[in-house]
C-alpha cells in the first residue's frame, strides 16, 4: 500500500520565491480544492499542504504514476499556469520516498530554517481541512498520524528546535539568561535602525513596561516610540534612562562611543549594581569595549550575537542528523505496517467486523426477541457468538500462519478486500497514537 503514497510539490529548494508565491491553492479554506484532487480517478485520498515556502499535494493512489500527471495538470489548472514550465519546479515522490518526505516535512527537517516550529501546525491544518472535506481515508490518516508522532519524537529527542537562530531571538534568550524573568524589566532603545527596532520589538513582547526610546533628535524618538508603543526620552536624560533600564539597545550614528566605561561605572552605582545587558548594534560601536569588564555589565555587539546564532544553526544541523535517523526508523515502522508484516490489525478488524454484524442483527431483531426471558436472551447471545467465532476461526488461523512475506501480504490484502476491512484495520490502530495535540 505504501507504494500508493504520492507527493507532488515544490519548496524553497526547488522553486524561486516568485513561483512559490503563485502556487498557494487559493480557496481551500474549507477543503474545496482538496476535493478536486480527491476526485481525480486514480486518487483515493488527498490533502494539500501550503505554506510560504512549500506547496504540496499528498495523496493515496492505486496508480501513482498516472495520478502524478493528473495532479500536476490540476495544479497548473488551478493556478492558471502552463503545465510544462511548472514541471521543472516540482518534485514527485512515491512509496518509501514519499513517506520519508512527509515525515521529514512534519519534523521540520525539510524546512528552510531547519527546526522552525510552525510547520507541524501547518501540516496539521492541511490534514484537518482534508479530513473535514472527507478527502482522507485510512492510508493518509495513518500516514499523517505517524508523521505527527515522528515530529513529536524528533522535537523531544533532539535539540533541532532548541537554539535560537536569529540575532533578535538570541538577544532575547540571552536577556533571559542574564536577567531571569523579563516581564518586569525595562528596555531602553538608543538611536534607530532596522536591526535595533527588530530586537526591541522582540523584547517588547516580553516586557510589560513600555520601551523607552531616545534619539539625538527628539522628533525621531517620538515617532519611533509611537511605532513601538513606547515612551520617548530626551537625549540629555540618557543617564537616567541607563540607570533605569535593564536591557539597553544602542544603534546611533555617533563616531565616538556614547557609553563609556566611566559613565557606566557611575550608572552602576546608581543602579545599586543591578545587572544590565547592553546590545550594541551600531557601527562604529556605541559602547566602549572596556565596559564589558565591569561587574554586572554584559555587552554584546551585533557580531557577537550573529556568532551565537551561527553556532546555534550549526548545532541544529547536527541535531537534524539525529532527527533524520528517527525519521528513517519511523518510516520503516510505517512500511512494516502497510506491507502487512503485522497481521494483527487485520485480524482485529476481522473480528470487529463479525461482531458488528452479529450485534447489528441482534439489534434488528430486538422486537421479536422481546418476549424472551433474560436467560433465553443470554443463550441467544452465546449461540450467535459461537457461530461467528466458528466462522472466523479458519480465516484467522489462515492469516496467522507464517508464510513467506509476499504470500502473507497477498493473503492479508485479499482478506482485507474480501471483507472490506481497510478502514477498520487502520482505525483500530490509530488509538495508540497521541496526535493532534496542539
Amino acid at each position, binding site marked *: 500500500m505504501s507504494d500508493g503514497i504520492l507527493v507532488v510539490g515544490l519548496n524553497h529548494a526547488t522553486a524561486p520565491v516568485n513561483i512559490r508565491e503563485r502556487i498557494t491553492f487559493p480557496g481551500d479554506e474549507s477543503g474545496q480544492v482538496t476535493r478536486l484532487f480527491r476526485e481525480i480517478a486514480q486518487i483515493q485520498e488527498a490533502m494539500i499542504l501550503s505554506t510560504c515556502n512549500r506547496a504540496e499535494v499528498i495523496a493515496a493512489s492505486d496508480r501513482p504514476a498516472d495520478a502524478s500527471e493528473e495532479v500536476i495538470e490540476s495544479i497548473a489548472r488551478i493556478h492558471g499556469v502552463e503545465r510544462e514550465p511548472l514541471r521543472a519546479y516540482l518534485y514527485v515522490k512515491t512509496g518509501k520516498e514519499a513517506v520519508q518526505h512527509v515525515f521529514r516535512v512534519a519534523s521540520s527537517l525539510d524546512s528552510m530554517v531547519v527546526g522552525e516550529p510552525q510547520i507541524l501546525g501547518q501540516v496539521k491544518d492541511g490534514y484537518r481541512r482534508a479530513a473535514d472535506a472527507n478527502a482522507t481515508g485510512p492510508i493518509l490518516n495513518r500516514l499523517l498520524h505517524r508523521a505527527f508522532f515522528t515530529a513529536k519524537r524528533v522535537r*523531544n*529527542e533532539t*535539540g533541532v528546535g*532548541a*537554539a535560537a537562530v536569529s540575532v533578535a531571538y538570541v538577544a532575547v534568550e*540571552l536577556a*533571559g*539568561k*542574564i*536577567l*531571569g*524573568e523579563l516581564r518586569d524589566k525595562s528596555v531602553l532603545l538608543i538611536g534607530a535602525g532596522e536591526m535595533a527596532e527588530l530586537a526591541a520589538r522582540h523584547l517588547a513582547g516580553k516586557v510589560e513596561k513600555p520601551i523607552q526610546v531616545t534619539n539625538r533628535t527628539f522628533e525621531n524618538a517620538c515617532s519611533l516610540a509611537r511605532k513601538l508603543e513606547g515612551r520617548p526620552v530626551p537625549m540629555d536624560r540618557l543617564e537616567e534612562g541607563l540607570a533605569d533600564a535593564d536591557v539597553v539597545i544602542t544603534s546611533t550614528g555617533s563616531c565616538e562611543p556614547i557609553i563609556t566605561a566611566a559613565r557606566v561605572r557611575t550608572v552602576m552605582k546608581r543602579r*545599586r*549594581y*543591578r*545587572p544590565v545587558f547592553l546590545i550594541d548594534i551600531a557601527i562604529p560601536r556605541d559602547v566602549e569595549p572596556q565596559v*564589558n569588564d565591569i*561587574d*554586572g555589565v*554584559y555587552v*554584546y555587539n551585533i557580531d*557577537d550575537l550573529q*556568532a*551565537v546564532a551561527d*553556532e546555534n544553526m550549526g548545532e541544529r544541523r547536527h541535531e537534524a542528523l539525529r532527527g533524520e535517523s528517527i525519521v528513517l526508523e519511523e518510516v520503516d515502522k510505517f512500511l512494516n505496517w502497510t506491507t502487512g508484516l503485522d497481521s494483527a490489525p487485520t485480524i482485529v478488524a476481522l473480528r470487529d467486523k463479525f461482531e458488528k454484524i452479529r450485534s447489528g442483527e441482534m439489534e434488528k431483531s430486538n422486537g421479536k426477541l422481546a418476549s424472551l426471558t433474560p436467560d433465553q436472551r443470554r443463550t441467544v447471545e452465546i449461540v450467535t457468538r459461537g457461530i461467528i467465532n466458528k466462522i472466523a476461526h479458519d480465516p484467522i488461523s489462515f492469516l496467522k500462519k507464517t508464510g513467506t512475506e509476499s504470500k502473507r501480504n497477498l493473503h492479508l490484502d485479499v482478506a482485507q478486500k474480501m471483507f472490506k476491512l481497510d478502514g477498520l484495520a487502520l482505525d483500530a490502530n490509530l488509538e495508540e497514537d497521541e496526535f493532534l495535540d496542539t
Partner: protein
Amino acid sequence: MELVFYKIAILFYIAASLAYLLFLLLSSGSSAPIAFWCAAAGFVAHSLSILHRAIFSGFFPLATPFDAVSCFAWIVVGIFIVVRYRDPSPIFGSIAIPLAAVLMLFGSTLAYQVDQPLVPILRSWWLPIHVTLALAGNAVFALMAVGGLMYIFQERLIKRKRLGRLHKLLPSLEILDSINRRGLPLGFFFLTLGIISGALWAGSVWGYYWTWDPKETWSLITWFAYAAMVHQRAALGWRGKKAALLAILGFVLVMFTFFGVSLLMGGHHAFKSVVAGTTVP
C-alpha cells in the same frame, strides 16, 4: 543490617548522581526525571533510616558523627526537593544530589555505634533543637555555595560569549543570584538560632552560656563572616559575582567548623565525648 535503609538511600543517591551526570554529558532528556525519582526514592529511604536510628537509639538520632552527617545530607536533599518544585531545571539537582551522595559515603565511614546509653546531658530536647538548627544552617549555606559556583561558571560563560551547552544547561544569573539572596537571611537565621540554642542548652546544664570551646569559637567566627555578608548585600548592594564568591568562601569556613573542629580540636562538641561521658567543659 542496622544501616540497611541508609545503604539503600546511598545506592539511590548514587544512581541519581549517575543519571544527573548522564544528563549533563549527553543532555538526554529522559535521564533528568529518572534522576529526580531516584533522588526522591533515596530521600524516602533516608527518612526511614533516620526514623530507624531514632527508634534504635531511643532518642533523636543526632548523637554520633554518623547521624549528624546523615541528617545534614537529609536536609540538603530536602531543600533540593522543595526548590525543584519552584525551578525544575535539573542543574541544581546535578550538584545537590552528588553533594548529598558524597556526604552520605563520608558518613558511612564514621562511627555510628552508641555502645553505652546516651549520657543524660544529650537526652535533652535541646539536642534535636540545637543540632537541627545548626545543620539546617549548614545545609542552606551548602546550597548557597553550590548556587555560587554555578553563578561563577554561568557569568564567566556569558562574559566570554561562550554560549554553548553548559551555558544553556545552567539557570539564569538572576535565578542563581536569588539562591544567594534568599538563602543568606535564612541560613543566617538558622545559624544564629543554632548558636543561641547551644548557649541556652549549655546554660541550662552547666550554668555557663559560653565557654570558648573550639566549636563555639569557630561558630562565632562563621557567624561574623555571614553577618558581614548580610551587611554587604543589604547595605552595599553586593550581589552577583561578589556574593557568589563569598558564599563559596563562607561555606569553606562552615565545613571547617563542622568537620575540622570536631575532628581536630576536641572540646565538648567532639563526638567521642558522647560515649565517653566526659562532657564537662
